[in-house]
């Protein structure tokens, strides 16, 4: 028996580039959301798109194009429903179901009924074309060319999602994207605590359990011209999932002024004047990092930009009780590292946490807030936020678990109340944030929701052979 291939390192030309890089050098980006009107024409479009799609084997310097499909998009392309059912339930059913509304906290103003795209009341989303370029001019050229090419092939543009380059920070004013998991045997090596199996993100390879995740593997007869790779798990079938990934896309609207007004009021001096030092402190406690990106674990008292990119820390030994970085803070929830059961501080706990990691590939959108009116009662109410994009091989165990069990749960770790102070949905018990301190904690209450969901969908980001396979489907 041949040795099992454990990483896609030898097959990078088949991966779409987004799996291994966020295209940080391509500072402008936009996302086209398309609906397939004419399947045959769409397949002809895809045949060319498969060649255009940027692969992972080299770093693009001018522009990039990646493409992903919803399950209804695959159906519209003509993929057989028995094959679609081989994908994971989450992908097949989509993001906007009553069950997932509870799980993800998509209720109230974040309910799919009122989404700008991806909800039950909007046009179906079949395809996402993700475009990246250097500068807005180059992006506009690429965007216009791609919308025209799509239209010429019976693909209707439902929405164009623009983005903005905030130079590495997000709209609330904090450096973002400091922590990403590393893939074993692929890309830049990292310490073992932050390294997980490639199969956690790329389908068709062993995951952290040494197993192959849910993906469609077809009888060889369904692939007569042998476009697809053979399943390395040994089934002898053709692996349509190989080198693909599940892509979670959510448009997260940020109430930046609401956030800063709330933090400002919660930290005023007894005489009613603002206290900028305490204000930044509370905001940073909520995030778990200072605006520069420095972790509160290593810089507990003041922001220290020399730690801006520092990510090599754990919680249990230095900050078990969250006196530095609160247990309920955003980054401690998003990646609790070694701090949870079964045995906090141990490699076992790290191992369990690492079953729930995602690769983040989001981009900000909307104009930067005017700092001059940040704390005022009236000011701009422009739409701005994050086009949250993440990649994972098991949506239920990775993205949905993270969102439900860590971000949204008021019972995270040993907490009694409070969801993620930055992005939580404020369901029951959600609106309290506890700041551990000596001799005793302080807490803020009545937090409004600062982040609302405006749209979303689950996509499949196929490998390039799979793109060609889909382009060759019979009508």
């Amino acid at each position, binding site marked *: 028996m041949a040795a099992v291939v454990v990483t896609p390192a030898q097959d990078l030309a088949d991966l779409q580039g987004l799996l291994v890089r966020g295209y940080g050098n391509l500072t402008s980006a936009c996302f086209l959301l398309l609906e397939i009107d004419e399947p045959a024409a769409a397949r002809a479009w895809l045949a060319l798109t498969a060649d255009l799609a940027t692969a992972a084997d080299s770093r693009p310097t001018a522009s990039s194009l990646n493409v992903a499909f919803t399950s209804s998009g695959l159906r519209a392309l003509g993929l057989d429903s028995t094959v679609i*059912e081989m994908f994971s*339930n989450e992908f097949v*059913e989509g993001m906007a179901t*009553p*069950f997932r509304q*509870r*799980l993800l906290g998509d209720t109230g103003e974040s309910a799919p009924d009122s989404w700008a795209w991806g909800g039950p009341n909007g046009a179906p989303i079949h395809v996402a074309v993700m475009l990246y370029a250097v500068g807005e001019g180059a992006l506009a050229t690429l965007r216009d060319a791609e919308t025209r090419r799509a239209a010429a092939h019976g693909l209707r543009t439902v929405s164009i999602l623009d983005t903005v380059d905030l130079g590495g920070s997000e709209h609330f004013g904090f450096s973002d994207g400091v922590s990403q998991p590393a893939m074993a045997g692929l890309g830049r090596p990292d310490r073992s605590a932050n390294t997980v199996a490639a199969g956690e993100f790329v389908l068709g390879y062993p995951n952290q*359990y040494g*197993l192959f*995740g*849910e993906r469609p593997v077809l009888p060889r007869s369904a692939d007569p011209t042998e476009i697809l790779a053979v399943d390395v798990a040994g089934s002898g079938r053709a692996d349509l999932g190989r080198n693909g990934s599940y892509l979670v896309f959510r448009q997260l609207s940020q109430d930046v002024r609401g956030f800063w007004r709330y933090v400002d009021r919660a930290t005023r001096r007894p005489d009613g004047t603002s206290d900028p030092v305490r204000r930044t402190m509370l905001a940073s406690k909520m995030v778990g990092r200072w605006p520069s990106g420095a972790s509160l674990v290593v810089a507990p008292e003041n922001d220290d930009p020399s730690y801006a990119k520092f990510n090599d820390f754990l919680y249990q030994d230095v900050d078990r*009780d969250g006196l530095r970085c609160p247990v309920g803070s955003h980054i401690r929830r998003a990646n609790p590292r070694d701090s949870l*059961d*079964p*045995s906090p501080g141990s490699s076992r706990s790290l*191992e*369990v946490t690492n*079953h*729930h990691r995602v690769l983040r590939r989001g981009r900000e959108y909307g104009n930067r807030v005017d700092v001059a009116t940040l704390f005022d009662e009236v000011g701009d109410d422009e739409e701005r936020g994050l086009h949250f994009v993440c990649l994972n091989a098991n949506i*239920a*165990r990775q993205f*949905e*678990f993270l969102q*439900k*069990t860590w971000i949204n*749960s*008021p*019972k995270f770790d*040993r907490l*009694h109340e409070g969801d993620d102070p930055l992005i939580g949905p404020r369901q*029951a*018990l959600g609106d309290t944030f506890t700041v*551990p301190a*000596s*001799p*005793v*904690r*302080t*807490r803020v*209450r009545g937090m409004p929701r600062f982040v609302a969901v405006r749209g979303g969908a689950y996509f499949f980001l196929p490998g390039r052979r799979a793109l060609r396979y889909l382009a060759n489907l019979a009508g």
Partner: protein
Amino acid sequence: MTPVKPEAMSALGELLGAMARDVLGNDVLPFGRLTKTHFARFFLLDSAQAHDGSQLPAYLIFMSDIDGRPEEGLAELVDVGGNGIDHLYCHCIGYPTALPVSRQARLEYLRAHIVRADVNYVNTIGRTVQQIRGEAEVREAIEDFLDRGGPELVGGNPSAVRAAIREFVTSDGRLNWALTPAPAPPLAYRVRELVHFAVPVILGLLLLPVLVPVLLVWLVVLRLHEIRDPSPLVKPDRAHLDQLRALEDYTEQNQFIAAGFLKSGWFRHVTAVVILWLVGFGARHLFNNGNLAGVKTIHFARWILLDGAVRSVFVSNYDGSTESYMDDFIDKVAWALNAVFSHGAGYPATRWLLFGGARDEQAFKGFLRAHQLPTQVWYAAYDQLSALNIVDNARIRAGLHGDMTELEAQNWLRLL
């Protein structure tokens, strides 16, 4: 556990559905009026055909986790339900037909259908509903007191803050009961538990020379079974999943039921019975204090063998989502799940009883979901508290009593 008249199944299902729409106040059994019940549920187990072709009946199963003896719980159930008990159980075989049935006859019918669980896991044995609710209120009140941030709290050392909290609790007539520590289990109970623990252990040690060779032979036979037993990869049907998911994630707690056939043959049956006994023994004596081998999110759980150990049912009340529950099983206690569940038909292949099995993530999740049953009516007495919250609330209350060093006071304040 009461067998259902075949012709009454759909009517009973509808009645349970109506109860579920108003669990606390419905007129069949208003659960909100039960005072000793932590969790309770009604569910239907369908009739099925056994391996030998015999027809197994459908059951209406009522399960509850209560304070005190089963008879006390039954009495409260009958008193709160009143005529509602008749409306419910008239769908079941053997229930008196002349309505209304007397209180005594209702009690007798229910008593005659009590089934003992083979394994009964209780997060913390001896903690009552009243105590759990009361301690949660005490914590809330202390938290609110701290939020008001009086002058006595500013700049104080841990002992001073603790003293201020104790003074606050003392001054409030609705809270000061908490200054007295929770009662320790009575001596007679502790002696009985010690004997119950020691006798089998001593017997086991004495019989060791006999047990070891038996165990070795058993292990080899087991391994042969494991190699032979089929373990098909099952992807649960979507309609079934939808039915289950429609009942999940409304509060911080969830319920779970899985039912299925045991693998056929006497070897698996005997093994299952012995292992369930061992697990029940462990749950009673070893995992009786908030920690089931690393899993701290389960309030109550049970395993029961039915129809002469042909079918089995597993039931639990836990914190968080089904996904996180199954992940806990896989990541933290796969060995224990394997030891018990691997005698169920279709379970993912195990090796030497403890290995493999649940570690096959997709196969295990598929197996559990496929064998899961909807809980028609579910009651939870404190649905906003996690099991860890309850443990911490008890520690907060305990810390109101007695002397503490500065360090102890500091550690106690960290619970708040």
